[in-house]
């Protein structure tokens, strides 16, 4: 993940020994040694082309280095290289609105094609309007996501775009305004998202929006249960989800379901202070169930 970083300060700077006794001689030795090894090395591990190297640098957050690498490319750039240059501009510090405008124009041009670059470019164009420009234009971003999904419905970028569109529908677009309608609009996107991990993310967002807007829990829980079934979340999300399923089930009066998820939480996660509350919840569930049984 963090490979490819270069030593910006130079090694000698970092260990404090700036003075080196035989620098030139060593340099020459090193050069000759490299020349001898060059044919062997080129057979053993082919050097990545500039575009691949630039993508690797971008993956490592070394955008400036990636830009330099792309600038070294000679001749007419390929569509992918043009796209990579526009992507670099999105995070080239300091980010300027002018540079973003130029990137947007490039993405728009590339998006007219009919290959994966076109799909990715159309997605990036929408992203600029959603999060990158100083003044976001959510309406424009939503229109671009919709257009991409119409044109390339099965493309990964169109599918991811639908998830991002759901966020706009849930929180940002002026219409529909009522929380239940916002959630219904996001729900309507579900049948169009076929990639499982993206379906999971969409379910998670619809479920979380349901709790944010305090919608009936029985409309929220099926989404969260589906997220849990698909799995694969990392960071804080899986632990929160495990507790959320138990707690919201309890609040909705589904005691058996709540017990199932709380017990799963105690089994699957490292014990911590939330486990103390979860144990207390399990006692409360037992008491509620007993009371339910006693009722005539």
């Amino acid at each position: 993940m963090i490979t490819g970083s270069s030593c910006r300060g130079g090694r000698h700077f970092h260990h404090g020994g700036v003075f080196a006794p035989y620098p030139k001689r060593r340099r020459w030795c090193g050069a000759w040694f490299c020349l001898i090894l060059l044919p062997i090395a080129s057979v053993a591990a082919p050097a990545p082309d500039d575009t691949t190297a630039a993508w690797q640098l971008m993956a490592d957050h070394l955008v400036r280095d990636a830009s330099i690498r792309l600038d070294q490319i000679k001749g007419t750039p390929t569509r992918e290289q043009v796209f990579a240059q526009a992507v670099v501009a999105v995070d080239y510090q300091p980010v300027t609105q002018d540079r973003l405008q130029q990137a947007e124009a490039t993405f728009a041009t590339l998006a007219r094609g009919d290959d994966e670059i076109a799909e990715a470019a159309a997605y990036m164009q929408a992203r600029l309007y959603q999060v990158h420009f100083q003044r976001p234009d959510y309406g424009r971003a939503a229109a671009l996501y919709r257009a991409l999904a119409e044109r390339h419905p099965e493309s990964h970028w169109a599918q991811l775009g639908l998830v991002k569109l759901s966020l706009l529908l849930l929180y940002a677009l002026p219409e529909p305004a009522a929380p239940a309608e916002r959630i219904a609009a996001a729900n309507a996107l579900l049948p169009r998202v076929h990639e499982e991990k993206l379906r999971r993310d969409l379910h998670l967002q619809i479920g979380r929006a349901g709790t944010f807007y305090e919608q009936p829990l029985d409309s929220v829980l099926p989404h969260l249960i589906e997220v849990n079934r698909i799995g694969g979340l990392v960071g804080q999300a899986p632990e929160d989800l495990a507790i959320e399923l138990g707690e919201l089930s309890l609040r909705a009066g589904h005691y058996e379901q709540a017990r199932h998820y709380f017990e799963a939480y105690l089994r699957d996660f490292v014990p911590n202070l939330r486990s103390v509350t979860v144990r207390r919840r399990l006692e409360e569930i037992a008491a509620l169930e007993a009371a339910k049984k006693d009722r005539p």
Partner: protein
Amino acid sequence: MKKSRAPKLGIGLLVLGYAFALYWVFTRSTPVVSSRPITIRIAHWQIEKGPPDGIDAIIKRYEELNPRVKVEQVLVPESVYRQWVRSNLTGGTGSDLIEYGVWLDGLTDIPARYFEPITDEMMRPNPYNRGTKLEHVAWVNTFTDGLALQRLNAPDPGQFYAVTLTELSERLFCNRDLLRTITGSDRTPHTFAELRVLFRQVAAYAARTGRPVHAMAGARDNASWLMQFLLQGAMMESSQRNDRYGVLAVYAWDELGLYLDGRWSYRSPEARAGLTLMREVSLSMKPGFVQSTRDAATQEFLRGDAVFIFAGTWDGTSIRSQATFPIDVLRFPQPTKDDPVMGPYFYGRFADGGGGTAMEFYLNKQSPHPKEAIDFMHFMTSVEGNQLFTDHSGWLPSVREVRVPPSIAAYLTPLDCYTFGAEYMTLGSSVNSAVLRNFYLLAGSQGSVDQFVDAMEAEMPEAVRTDLRKEVSNRAIIVRPQDVAIMAKAALSRRAPQDASLLLARERLESSQTQSEALMLQMGRQLERAGPAK
């Protein structure tokens, strides 16, 4: 004769000087060429007694195992830490590993801008745990809390950013000799009611003898830790009511939004109960303590002028190693259900530790040696590395399977208490500043709960909006570059479709980005709903 000897003498002196210089260079000076080509630096502010020795012990062993790497420990005083971090990271001269805490005022953008996530590494076992019970355990699950606190504080909910070195708790340190002198017994209080009795006994003793003794050593820092603790305890029922997501916790960003929605305030009866308790305790501290820092409280306690000091276990090694009297370490006596102030809002014993591991070290994005820095992170949080830290620092470990020495066993918090995460003081830097600025209105003979609440409620509407806007902009700092990383990972994945890790990394990044964006939009919606502060 004289004339012919002079050049010889000069040459002789020159040869002698040259010989001496050679001798000095090859025997006394630092090697001109380091035998360790890579140097990494680890910076932190824990310069109290303990942690520097613990980290030195880790470094010594690590350098034995890794002859190519030299590790330097950079100790930065707390008073200048914020400026140091900001200026070094901005100037590109930050250490490879940097301690950071979310409560550090004015630094909330730092993790997003300058720290690198280590999520992929967290999913794999720590190589330095080979041969231990944790050999096959994912790194994240080797920590006693599964890095719970770190995950809560991560700038991006889908990513891991830091490793921790210790578990912290808050304890009451008791001067046993002074307690016996005043009460005639070694018995320490177990409930808040018993503590109240003791406060009265100490005040009576001071009045009777004319000795300037107080029940509690006082300083702004110690008092604010105590206030945070008491407020969290008093607000537990309120926090549960406000837990709309059902995660049995309320995150700081959500608390800010909930405040704007009118779901809680310092005027609420629960908050007032916590503040009333804090005021009671503050009256057993020396007058004017609000002006002093924790060092002054420690000195007051060490001089024998206070029976107790409420402190984090981070001060434990300093206090215990310098005291000339026996010290008992006890959990803060808590109010019970029949307490006249807190009773109506009592939920259970509230957490005085065990909330998670701390002393978080982050990887600097600009580190010239990220692989070696991560390798050192692995070692310092391995069973061996963390045992060295614990044994040499007197601080609790953060890693499972590390033995806790009996001398610090009292710092461990059993799983017998509750927390809902909500911190009603350190919600954001503006709110925290307002609390500290107005604290004097609560404490001391001239203070009152009403004065403090009035002042806070006047400042909160603007402070909360400022902090919430900062939360939104901090998340934007994370979300925007992620588009570039996602595109890059997709391009690399196209070139190596057989490499499943690339696809997984892209999927994880997309998922966590979507979660962060959703939070940004929720916060934006709350700000919009609340409108400008009146």
